[in-house]
C-alpha cells in the first residue's frame, strides 16, 4: 500500500505541476485572475503531495518493507534507525525524489511569501518553477522510480514494478530481508543527515532567483524588482550550499582517511561550480541595486549558476566522470543531458531576445577604475576565471582528451593547485580593497589611508602565525593578504561602532548592535568576509605545512612526528557494536615535550553484511586551534597487539576551517535578517508593502 500511495502522490504532483505551469501561462494571455489563482493553488498543492510520497517512502524504510526495491537496496535488518532515515536520500532514486520535494517546498515558500509584492512576475515564476519541478518528477516517475517493488512471476523470474500484474506474487519477506544490501559503509556517518539535504537546498534554492530572472525576461519587468524579491532566497541558497560544501569536507576528513578535506574530485567540483557563480551573482546584484548597472551581466550570471546546478546534477548522476561519489550508472544520463541543454538554450534565448530589443539598458556607466563597481566587476571576472579553471579540470579536459585524443587522463589535486591559487589570491586582495572603496570613484591615496590600520592588524596576525610555525617569507606575505581581507572587515565594523560611541555616547556593545541593526546587509557581509579570511588561513596552513608519517608499531613502541611522540598502548579487538559491526580499536597516547596530552582510539570497523567495501578506518584526532594530531589505522595491513600500522598527520590550523564556517553561518543569518523599517511619518501609510515592494 505504501508503494501505491507514494507513486500515486508523486504522479498527482507531476500532473499538478504541469497544470500549474500551463494554466499560469494561459492566464497571462487571457488576463484571467481566476485561472491564475487556480494555477497558484495547483502549484501550492505539490508540496503536500510530495510530502505524502516522501513520507510513504520514509515509512517504508522505517518499517523495513524490503519488497520495495529501493528499501532493499539501501537498508538491511541491521541498519540503525538513524541511517534508515538518511537512507531516504542514500541512493539515486530516493535522492531524486527528495530533491523534487525540496524544490516544491521552495516554490511553495516563494509563491506564498512573494505573491503580493511581485504580482506582475508571479505568473511566470509559477510557470518556470513548475516546469522544472515537473521535469524532475518525470525523471523520478519514468526513469528512477523509488516505489518499484520486486515480484516473482509465474515463470519464476524476478520483475520490478510498482503495481502487480500478470500473476505476480511478492517474494518471501524473510528471503528479502536476509539478502538486503544495506547502506554503503562510507555513508554511515553523522554527516549523512546534513550534507545531502544542505547541498540540495543550495542547488534547488538557486531555482528561485533563476525563476524570477526568467519571469522578468518573460514579463518585461526588467527593473531590479526580481533581484529585490529574491535576495533572501539567494542568500539562503548560498548559505546552504556553502555549508553543504564545508560539511562534505568535514565528512571526507573524518572517514576517507587521507588526512585532507577537499580532494578536487569531479563531484565535489560539480557542487563548487555553482557556488563560484552564485557568489559572483551575490556581489554583482548589489551593483544593479545601487547603481542600475550590469543588468545583462546579472542575467547571464544567474542563468549560468542555475545551468551549472543542472549540469552538476547531470554529471554526478550519469556517471560522466570517474569519482568516489558516483551513483550507479543508470538510464538517467541522456534525459538529464537534454534537460540541461533545453534549460540553458531557452533561458539564453530569452535573455538575448530582450537584450536585442534594447530592454536591458544600464542606467549608469563605469567611472573610476578603483570605484566599488569596477572592483566588483573584477571580482566577477576572477570568479569566472576560477569557474573556467575548475570546469576544465574536472570535465572539459578529461572528456576532450578521451574523445578527441584517445587517451584517458586524470586531472587531480596537482592540476587544481597549480591553476587556482593565483585566482584565490586575487579574490582575497579584492576582498581587502573593495569594502574600502566608494561607489563611483576612489583615489589611490584615499584607499591607502584606509588600509593603514587593517594592514597593521594583519601584520599582527602574521606575526602570530610565524611564531606558531616556521614559515617562508612568501607564505607569510600570502597569509598577510588573506588576513588583511578579514581585518579590513573587522576594522570597518569597529570604526562604525566607534563613531556611534563617540557621537551618540552609546556603550560599545549597544553601539555595535545598533550599527549592525541599521545595516545588517553590510555588517553581515563583513562578518562573512572575516569568516572567509579565517577559512582561507586554515586551508592554506593545513595544505602547505601538513606533516605525515606511516609506521608499523607493536604495543609499547612509539613514533615521532613534528615534536610529538605517539605511543601504541593497547589493542581491543573484536568489539561488537549495536549495529553488528566488528571494531578493532587501538589505544594510543600522544605526548609533547614529555607530557601526555591525549589518549586516542583510532579503530577499524568491519561490516560483515556489506558487499564490496566492508571495512572502514575511523581516525581519532586531538584538535586544537594550532593543529590536529590525526591518527588512523591502515586497514589493509594486519592490526593486532603484535603489530599495527599507523598513519599519522599533523594538520596545522585546520580547525580554523570549521570555526570559520560557523562564523559564516552567523554572518549570513545577520545579512538575511530584515532591517528595521524606518517608521513612515505620513498618515495613510498603512499599506506600504503592496505598492513599494518588499524592502531589501
Amino acid at each position, binding site marked *: 500500500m505504501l508503494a501505491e500511495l507514494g507513486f500515486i502522490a508523486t504522479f498527482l504532483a507531476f500532473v499538478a505541476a504541469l497544470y500549474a505551469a500551463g494554466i499560469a501561462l494561459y492566464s497571462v494571455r487571457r488576463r484571467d485572475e481566476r485561472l491564475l489563482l487556480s494555477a497558484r493553488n495547483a502549484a501550492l498543492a505539490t508540496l503536500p503531495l510530495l510530502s505524502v510520497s516522501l513520507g510513504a517512502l520514509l515509512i517504508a524504510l522505517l518499517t523495513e518493507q524490503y519488497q520495495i526495491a529501493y528499501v532493499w537496496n539501501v537498508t538491511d535488518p541491521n541498519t540503525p534507525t538513524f541511517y534508515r532515515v538518511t537512507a531516504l536520500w542514500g541512493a539515486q532514486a530516493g535522492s531524486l525524489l527528495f530533491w523534487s520535494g525540496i524544490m516544491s517546498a521552495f516554490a511553495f515558500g516563494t509563491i506564498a511569501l512573494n505573491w503580493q509584492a511581485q504580482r506582475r512576475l508571479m505568473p511566470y515564476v509559477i510557470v518556470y518553477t513548475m516546469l522544472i519541478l515537473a521535469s524532475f518528477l518525470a525523471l523520478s516517475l519514468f526513469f528512477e522510480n523509488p516505489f518499484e517493488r520486486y515480484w516473482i512471476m509465474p515463470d519464476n523470474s524476478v520483475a520490478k514494478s510498482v503495481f502487480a500484474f500478470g500473476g505476480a506474487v511478492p517474494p518471501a519477506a524473510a528471503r528479502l530481508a536476509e539478502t538486503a544490501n544495506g547502506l554503503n559503509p562510507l555513508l554511515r556517518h553523522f554527516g549523512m543527515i546534513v550534507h545531502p539535504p544542505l547541498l540540495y537546498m543550495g542547488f534547488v534554492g538557486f531555482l528561485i532567483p533563476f525563476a524570477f530572472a526568467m519571469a522578468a525576461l518573460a514579463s518585461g519587468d526588467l527593473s531590479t524588482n526580481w533581484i529585490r524579491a529574491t535576495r533572501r532566497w539567494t542568500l539562503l541558497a548560498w548559505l546552504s550550499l556553502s555549508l553543504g560544501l564545508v560539511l562534505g569536507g568535514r565528512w571526507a576528513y573524518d572517514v576517507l582517511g587521507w588526512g585532507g578535506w577537499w580532494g578536487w574530485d569531479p563531484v565535489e567540483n560539480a557542487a563548487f561550480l555553482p557556488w563560484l557563480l552564485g557568489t559572483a551573482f551575490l556581489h554583482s546584484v548589489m551593483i544593479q541595486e545601487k547603481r542600475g548597472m550590469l543588468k545583462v551581466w546579472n542575467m547571464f550570471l544567474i542563468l549560468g549558476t542555475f545551468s551549472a546546478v543542472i549540469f552538476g546534477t547531470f554529471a554526478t548522476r550519469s556517471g*560522466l566522470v570517474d569519482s568516489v561519489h558516483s551513483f550507479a550508472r543508470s538510464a538517467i544520463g541522456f534525459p538529464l543531458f537534454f534537460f540541461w541543454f533545453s534549460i540553458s538554450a531557452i533561458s539564453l534565448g530569452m535573455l538575448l531576445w530582450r*537584450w536585442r530589443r534594447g530592454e536591458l539598458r544600464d*542606467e549608469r556607466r563605469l567611472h573610476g577604475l578603483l570605484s566599488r563597481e569596477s572592483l566588483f566587476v573584477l571580482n566577477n571576472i576572477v570568479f569566472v576565471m576560477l569557474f573556467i579553471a575548475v570546469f576544465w579540470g574536472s570535465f572539459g579536459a578529461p572528456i576532450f582528451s578521451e574523445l578527441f585524443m584517445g587517451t584517458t587522463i586524470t586531472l587531480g589535486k596537482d592540476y587544481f593547485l597549480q591553476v587556482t591559487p593565483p585566482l584565490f589570491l586575487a579574490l582575497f586582495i579584492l576582498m581587502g580593497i573593495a569594502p574600502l572603496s566608494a561607489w563611483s570613484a576612489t583615489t589611490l591615496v584615499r584607499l591607502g589611508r584606509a588600509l593603514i590600520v587593517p594592514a597593521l592588524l594583519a601584520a599582527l596576525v602574521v606575526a602570530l602565525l610565524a611564531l606558531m610555525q616556521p614559515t617562508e617569507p612568501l607564505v607569510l606575505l600570502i597569509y598577510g593578504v588573506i588576513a588583511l581581507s578579514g581585518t579590513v572587515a573587522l576594522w570597518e565594523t569597529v570604526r562604525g561602532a566607534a563613531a556611534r560611541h563617540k557621537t551618540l555616547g552609546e556603550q560599545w556593545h549597544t553601539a555595535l548592535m545598533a550599527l549592525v541593526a541599521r545595516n545588517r546587509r553590510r555588517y553581515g557581509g563583513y562578518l562573512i568576509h572575516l569568516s572567509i579570511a579565517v577559512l582561507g588561513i586554515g586551508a592554506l596552513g593545513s595544505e602547505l605545512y601538513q606533516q605525515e608519517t606511516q609506521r608499523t608499531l607493536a604495543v609499547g613502541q612509539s613514533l615521532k612526528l613534528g615534536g610529538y611522540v605517539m605511543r601504541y598502548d593497547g589493542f581491543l579487538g573484536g568489539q561488537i557494536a549495536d549495529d553488528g559491526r566488528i571494531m578493532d580499536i587501538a589505544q594510543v597516547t600522544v605526548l609533547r615535550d614529555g607530557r601526555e596530552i591525549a589518549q586516542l582510539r583510532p579503530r577499524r570497523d568491519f561490516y560483515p553484511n556489506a558487499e564490496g567495501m566492508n571495512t572502514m578506518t575511523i581516525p581519532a584526532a586531538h584538535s586544537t586551534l594550532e593543529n590536529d594530531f590525526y591518527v588512523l589505522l591502515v586497514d589493509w595491513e594486519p592490526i593486532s597487539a603484535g603489530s599495527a600500522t599507523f598513519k599519522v598527520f599533523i594538520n596545522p590550523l585546520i580547525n580554523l576551517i570549521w570555526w570559520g564556517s560557523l562564523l559564516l553561518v552567523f554572518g549570513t543569518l545577520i545579512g538575511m535578517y530584515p532591517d528595521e523599517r524606518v517608521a513612515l511619518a505620513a498618515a495613510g501609510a498603512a499599506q506600504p508593502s503592496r505598492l513599494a515592494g518588499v524592502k531589501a
Partner: protein
Amino acid sequence: MTELPMTHDVLTERAPAKRSVNFITVLAALILASMALIFGLGLRHQQQTQPTEGMAPLFTLQTLDGQEIALEALRGQVVVINFWASWCGPCRDEAAELEAAWQQYKDKDVIFLGIAYTDTERNAQAYLKEFGITYPNGLDYKTKISAQYRITGVPETFIVDRQGHISEFVMTPLKRVQLSAMIERALAKGTQP
C-alpha cells in the same frame, strides 16, 4: 517601476551597439553548442559497453616470453581473449578452467590469449606459474587494449571467430563446459562466408 531620477547619460545614449549584441549572441550560441556537443558525445562514449558484435578491435600483444602477437595475424583461427589480473579473486576461480579448455582445443585451430590488466610483470608471472598456464599471456601496455574493448572489470572474455568478428562476450568467470560450448559455436561459424 523604473528608478528616478534618470541621468543625463541615459537620455543621450543610443540602443546597445548592434554589433556587440550580435557578437555576444554568436559567441554564446557557439559556447553552448560546443558544450552540448562535447558532453553529449562524452556521455555517449561513457555509456558504450563492451563490443559484442562486429570486427574485433585489432591490437598487438607483447607476451611475457617476449613474443609479439598481432590479432590480425590470427585470422582463420578462433581466438579466446581473456582479460585477467593477479589481484582479481574471480580470475583465480576460472584460471584452471581456462587452462584445461586450452589443453583441449590447442590443436584445433583455436588460440587463447590472456591479457593482464594493470598488473606488474612480477605478479603476473607468479600467477601464471601458480596455475600452470601455458597459453600466451601479455601485459596490457598503457591499458590500451582494455580501453579498446571497453572492459569494466576483470575477468572478461571475448570469443573472436575465424573472420575476426566478435562472436561472444562473457562478463563472469567461466566454467570449462560453458567455454567449450562457446568455442564450438565459434568454430561452427567458421565454415560460413
